[in-house]
């Protein structure tokens, strides 16, 4: 289920150009993260994949088929969609929310609700919540229900629009780990939109850094981007210039070495025999770590 954008542009009726000549291939069974500040067109790009927004020019292909020829309602039902603030229907119970799309596609009510219980297990929610209404759940629980709903028809593609943007940092952490765990077993083609670069690096196999107008600043794995930021914009965006990712070692207690970032905050601790930090060998892994701090910092 590869998704391909071919020279896609979008100008809204009010004259604003959200995306201009955007081309990108999103590989199957991996997570691609579109990351950028607000106004960079990332949500517009995401919504083009299920035809909530149609491009003004250019085309989008899913497995080689132009989606402009697929009726939107059916297309949307075959693609999972998870959004910020969950977007759950407040007048439907948790089970009915999860069962929304199967019921729309004609799966009998009873079976859809049964399947919904299994999906609650899958996203780590207690089945006892099935009969509650969304307003009776915490923000984190609502997002989990949102993910369960997105997975209900076992779609090949899962679109996620800043799904963890509105929950507190601890819950966000849990949800991110949960998504990594799920993705490890499900292997969906996930397209994830966020403005949080840390989230992008954590979740993405492929990360796409966007500038205004949907212009691609850099595409690559998190490692590639950290090691070789393509330009000033990327270096700035990933925080390299601010020295956020440049760490210096300071002696800690005993065998511990304290890592301090450029702002002077303790970023972590490394255990090193005798409290001395030595780079052992010149394997690719340690080299990329040293590259990362040097180059990113100097960029």
């Amino acid at each position: 289920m590869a998704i391909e954008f071919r020279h896609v542009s979008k100008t809204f009726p009010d004259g604003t150009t959200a995306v201009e000549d955007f081309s990108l291939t999103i590989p199957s069974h991996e997570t691609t993260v579109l990351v950028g500040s607000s106004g960079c067109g990332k949500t517009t790009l995401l919504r083009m994949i299920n035809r909530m927004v149609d491009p003004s020019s250019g085309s989008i292909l899913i497995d080689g088929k132009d989606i402009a020829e697929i009726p939107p309602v059916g297309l949307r039902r075959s693609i999972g969609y998870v959004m910020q603030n969950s977007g759950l229907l407040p007048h439907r119970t948790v089970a009915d929310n999860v069962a929304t799309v199967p019921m729309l596609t004609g799966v009998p009510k009873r079976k859809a609700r049964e399947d919904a219980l299994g999906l609650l297990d899958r996203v780590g929610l207690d089945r006892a919540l099935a009969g509650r209404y969304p307003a009776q759940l915490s923000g984190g629980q609502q997002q989990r229900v949102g993910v369960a709903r997105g997975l209900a028809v076992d779609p090949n593609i899962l679109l996620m629009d800043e799904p963890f943007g509105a929950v507190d940092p601890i819950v966000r952490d849990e949800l991110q780990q949960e998504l990594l765990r799920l993705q490890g077993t499900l292997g969906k083609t996930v397209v994830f939109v966020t403005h949080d670069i840390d989230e992008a690096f954590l979740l993405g196999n492929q990360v796409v850094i966007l500038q205004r107008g949907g212009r691609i600043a850099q595409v690559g794995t998190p490692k590639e981007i950290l090691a070789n930021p393509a330009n000033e914009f990327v270096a700035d965006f990933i925080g390299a210039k601010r020295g956020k990712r440049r760490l210096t070692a300071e002696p800690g207690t005993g065998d511990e070495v304290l890592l301090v970032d450029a702002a002077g905050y303790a970023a972590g601790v490394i255990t090193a025999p005798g409290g001395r930090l030595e780079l052992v060998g010149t394997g690719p892994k340690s080299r990329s770590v040293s590259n990362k701090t040097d180059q990113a910092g100097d960029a």
Partner: protein
Amino acid sequence: MDWVWTHLADIGGLTLDHIALAVPPIVLGFLVSIPLGYWASRSPAARGVLLTVGNVLYTIPALALVVLVPVLLGLSLLNPLNVIVALLIYAVAIMVRSAADAFAAVSEDVRQSAVAQGYSGSQRFFRVELPLAGPVLLAGIRVVSVSTISLVTIGALVGIPSLGSLFTDAYQRAFLLEAAVGFVMVLVLAAVFDLILALVGRLLMPWNRGKSVRGGDRARLEALPVKVTGSI
């Protein structure tokens, strides 16, 4: 009180007449206002026109309307349809505003989410927007119901029987008890209708139990000038 016991059958008959005149405008007014209100919630221009027309219609004195309608529709002056049509106009005038607010209050997030899940246009309206507009629609129809039941009495002035006939009769005979009976019966009827609507709302909107209509909406509804028989 003897008068009441000897005239129970008359009072009962007039109460039924009253109900028969009140129910059609309430039900039809609700049904007509749903599409108009939805339209108004989607288009600012439509909203402006519909609400202005509604306000203008609402200012027409009730008695004038009851006299005008038969002239305009070519009906006999004693046809009960006159009262029904006149009250339908008032009902729509009140209800369109409620319905417009009700649909405008449906969260855009939820609407977008429904689109993203693959609801078609009509499914989204009937399964998402209409139920979510429910609480404010209910508040509106309750105002319409009370107002309509009170206004039905006007028909008595042009000879269409209802509980209002007890007022006209009492006036002609200077018989206070009869007017009091009519007054109490109108109140009871309004209360019963309101109770039924509240119960139907509870049954149809289980997610809404224990929650009241949001403050702003309620305040707006209460600010509506409810037409009372005194306004003739």
